[in-house]
């Protein structure tokens, strides 16, 4: 049985033991706009994400959570330190293994949903007919089968997020980066989307880095929660593995005693950082 499983793995391509994402001493300092001082968003971040692991990053607002995603995606180069993807160092250029679900709207308003979803395939030179078929299949999968030829403005916020999700997953990325993807949704839509995301993820486990400011969301979805300190120069102040059973239902799991224990433990760490951020803000006023 074990041998058989290993065979399947081999057929899917070589699975190295190297972590999907490995950040070593990553520091990102941004040169401020003319006149202002340089700003260090994150400092000495060391983080490994195993293949197939769902990791959430939580922290107070403005602590550089998105910076970690941008480094992993290859959108920004760290000022110091390095990022490796499946053991291969990321030197300049984009990380072709990653898909990125942005916090704000990333759909092109001038393209229909199908045209938006097929973008990734279009960029890879897949012929239009095949790309359209794949896009249609993905739209079906995220429950928007009948919205092919709608433009983004004709969809609700939740529907637009589903389109963005389909757009991200169509290229079959090995690593999925999510930047507070559901923060703009109302609570019901949000829990619905969270459950759907977990189902999609369970179907073929990818490595996920999920950034959120919502601790409950982080715990209910992840294998591991990483807590960042208050910015600037945020660093990792705590890591907690979440041993709650899967499959999970995000709204039900919040009521279990296991969840509450973990929540208490993480909140003890997170609260301090949140208070620090809050204190700085009040002091500035």
């Amino acid at each position: 049985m074990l041998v058989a499983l290993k065979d399947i793995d081999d057929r899917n391509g070589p699975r190295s033991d190297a972590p999907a994402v490995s950040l070593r001493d990553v520091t990102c300092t941004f040169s401020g706009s003319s006149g202002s001082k340089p700003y260090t968003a994150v400092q000495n971040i060391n983080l490994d994400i195993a293949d197939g692991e769902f990791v959430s990053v939580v922290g107070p607002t403005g602590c550089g959570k998105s910076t970690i995603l941008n480094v992993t995606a290859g959108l920004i180069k760290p000022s110091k330190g390095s990022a490796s993807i499946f053991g291969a160092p990321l030197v300049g250029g984009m990380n072709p293994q990653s898909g990125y679900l942005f916090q704000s709207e990333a759909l092109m308003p001038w393209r229909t949903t199908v045209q938006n979803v097929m973008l990734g395939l279009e960029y890879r030179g897949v012929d239009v007919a095949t790309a359209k078929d794949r896009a249609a299949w993905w739209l079906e999968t995220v429950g928007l089968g009948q919205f092919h030829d709608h433009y983004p403005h004709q969809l609700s916020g939740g529907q637009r997020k589903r389109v963005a999700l389909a757009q991200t997953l169509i290229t079959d990325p090995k690593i999925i980066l999510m930047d507070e993807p559901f923060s703009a949704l109302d609570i019901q839509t949000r829990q619905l989307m969270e459950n759907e995301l977990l189902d999609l993820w369970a179907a073929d486990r990818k490595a996920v880095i999920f950034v959120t400011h919502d601790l409950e969301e982080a715990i209910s979805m992840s294998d591991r929660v990483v807590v960042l300190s208050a910015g600037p120069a945020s660093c990792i102040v705590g890591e907690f593995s979440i041993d709650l059973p899967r499959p999970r239902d995000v709204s039900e799991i919040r009521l279990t005693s296991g969840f509450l224990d973990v929540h208490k433990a993480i909140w003890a760490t997170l609260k301090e950082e949140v208070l620090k951020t809050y204190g700085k803000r009040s002091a500035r006023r």
Partner: protein
Amino acid sequence: MTAIKEFFVGRDGNLPGRPSLLLWQFVVLAGFFAAWQFLTDHNILDPFFFGSPKEIIARTWADFASGQIYIHLWITLIETLLAFAIGTFGGVVIGFWFARAPLLSAIFDPFIKAANAIPRVVLAPIFALWLGLGIWSKVALGVTLVFFVVFFNVYQGVKEVNLVILNNSRVLGANRNQLLRTVYLPSALTWLFSSLHTAVGFALVGAVVGEYLGASAGLGYRIAQSEGVFDTNGVFSGMLILTAFVIAIDAVVTLIEKRLLVWRPQQTTTLNAQG
């Protein structure tokens, strides 16, 4: 009493329906011409200087009936379209180029601004000298007007491309060319389309002003001719035809705009508009 107050001060709630609005607009138009006719008939306004609506309409009718106006309409239309096409093409290419080449745009910035500050009418004699009295001097004048509108809009469109959409496309694997084609160009075009009305209007202004200052055909030329012989009715007739011409062109532009910007949110949309 309240009706009169509402009329002048405004009121809350909905406007009256389209038919009654049209009726009011017709009343305003008819009233204006009736007053004009009355004043010139009774010599309160001198018909020599102010013309007479009856005569103007008769003149316009005669011009169309004899068919001699068509060649002038045609010339002006050609000049307008050429000025619009050339100016837009140049504006898109140069605007795109400058937006993607910061050093170039930094060097040329003051010159572009200076060139745009020149009142374009003063260029008409130069163009007439260079290009003669044919259509090309008018096209050139129109191009100088259209180019800058399009240039600034395209430049802005490329500069202010949505960063999230740009980054999203990069993550999805777009190379430099694909970014240009799928992100920068559509973004610039949305700005361009929103300036279509202005651009077409400027092309027409260039054509007519050019004709007015020196030409052998065109609507502007006819107005200048009538003015030269103190033919007030001819001037007004020319203005009437020009107005109708502009309204027709504007309607065509609106139609094109509607087709090109179908993805834009319309206020009347109710499809799934809960988000």
